[in-house]
């Protein structure tokens, strides 16, 4: 007898995962030839988690982040962001992005920069929108609402950028070396504050960095990428207790973890 063709039902989007990448490959073609930036990346990021991406420069960390943000289309493979293809998640305004150099609009005050996401997007309603005032308060900038970006320090600009990324109430926050250009003291303080933001918002955070300490201190897991072509080298779970304090970086557990990350990085 004829056997009924059993069609494999399309797997329903898994609510528990904020991001799913299946065999993602990204190639760029330039006049000097084709470069494979990412090769066969498989990745699952649970909702509400904090993942740090660590790797040598040129390993495709930023590219991977931009694939999730629908800024780069992968050459092959499948991405699901918040249960949909990235472009749908982007149009639902569920993705927040923080750039390395804040990317504030210099003609807007701190407050006007934070409210920008509420003004654009063709006037679509944003059900998850948060109060810009509360967010500026959350990032410690109350009293600076009317300051222009050139009047703010680098750390303060990055705080504004974080508030701006959060104002639409995103379920996924992508951060591309946001504290890379800051001095170490400011960076440490912002690291602690970012964990506080993560706890209070429950947002999934994917954080790209080239600092071993930052990656280990912030992440629940550290994803190590190897370069040329960019591929997953190792996923290292971080077992530090929560809430994390800067002093934990002096504990033997942290030092051992950082040492392990460094040794793996050296082979990337």
């Amino acid at each position, binding site marked *: 007898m004829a056997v009924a063709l059993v069609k494999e039902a399309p797997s329903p989007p898994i609510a528990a995962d904020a991001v799913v990448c299946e065999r993602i490959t990204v190639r760029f073609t330039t006049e000097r030839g084709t470069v494979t930036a990412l090769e066969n990346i498989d990745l699952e990021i649970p909702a509400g988690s904090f993942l740090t991406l660590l790797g040598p420069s040129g390993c495709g960390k930023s590219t991977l982040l*931009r694939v999730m*943000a*629908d*800024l780069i289309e992968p050459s092959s493979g499948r991405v699901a962001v918040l249960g949909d293809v990235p472009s749908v998640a*982007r*149009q639902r*305004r569920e*993705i*927040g*992005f923080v*750039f*390395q*150099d804040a*990317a504030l*609009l*210099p*003609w*807007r005050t701190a407050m006007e920069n934070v409210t*920008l*996401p509420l*003004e*654009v*997007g*063709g006037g*679509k309603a944003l059900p998850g929108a948060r109060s810009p005032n509360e967010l500026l308060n959350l990032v410690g900038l109350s009293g*600076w609402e009317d*300051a*222009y*970006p*050139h*009047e*703010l*320090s680098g750390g*303060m600009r990055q705080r504004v950028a974080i508030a701006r990324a959060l104002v*639409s109430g995103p379920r996924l926050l992508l951060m591309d070396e946001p504290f890379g250009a800051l001095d170490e003291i400011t960076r440490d303080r912002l690291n602690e504050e970012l964990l506080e933001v993560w706890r209070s918002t429950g947002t999934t955070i994917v954080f790209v960095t080239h600092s071993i300490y930052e990656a280990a201190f912030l992440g629940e897991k550290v994803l190590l990428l190897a370069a040329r072509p960019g591929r997953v080298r190792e996923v290292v779970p971080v077992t530090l207790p929560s809430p994390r304090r800067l002093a934990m970086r002096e504990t033997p557990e942290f030092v051992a973890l950082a040492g392990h990350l460094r040794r793996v990085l050296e082979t990337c």
Partner: protein
Amino acid sequence: MANTTIPAVTMGAFVDDAEAQARFVARQRYLAWRRRLLPAAAIAGMLLLWWQAVEQFDIKPFIAPSPVVVAVTLYERFGMLMTNLLPTAIEAVCGFALGNIAAISLATVFVYRKTAEEAFFPIAVMVNTIPVVAKAPILVLLLGNGMEPKIAIAALICFFPTLVNMTRGLRDVRSEQLELMRILSATPREVFFKLRVRNAMPYLFSALKIAASTAVIGAIVGEWIGSTKGIGALIIQATYNFDSPLLYATIVVGSTFSALFFGLISFAERRVLRWNVGQNT
């Protein structure tokens, strides 16, 4: 302007030191007066030198009139000078508006249609290389002897710097800012008005400041050919009549108007680009 943007990190670290504060304010005030008085003193010195040179060497008034004679002419023939300034001012301002509106529109097209830029930009460069004195007769032949050719010349002169600057300003948007707008799912219209136009403002104002003075020059040169009124016509008449005091007085009137126009644009720039003060200096 002395620009003392205080780094944000030092905010809240101020202590009260009335004496130091008073010294600082006094020094600022001194510098402000110095900025104003130095050029004024230099101008006064030059006028004095000029006046003395004419007196001492007994130079004929039609070769170089003394500043006193020029001042007297300015006073006595003020009404006539103003009557002639009016058409020139109208031509310059209309030309300024037309030329800049056209340039801004074309720059917008260039930014969105690269093909248009590749096709038309070389033509714009070529038209810009034609000297004003050569453009003037062509336009008079084309447009007649009214205000139209003068407005057209003023417009043509304003057009090129604004086109180049505005195209650059609309296009040179930082890639992160464009990525940001994409993540926010901004419409093309929002990207244009909230990002590109605002980004182009400093570039536009640099061009407008150049255009403010060149528009007046364009209108004056336009009046050299077959005009009976206007600052340009007056310059020609005064020259042919060896009426040097009137020639000088006319130049003073034209330059003053040009400077006022420039000042107006600079004032508008300071108002519009308040956010840019930190980068400008």
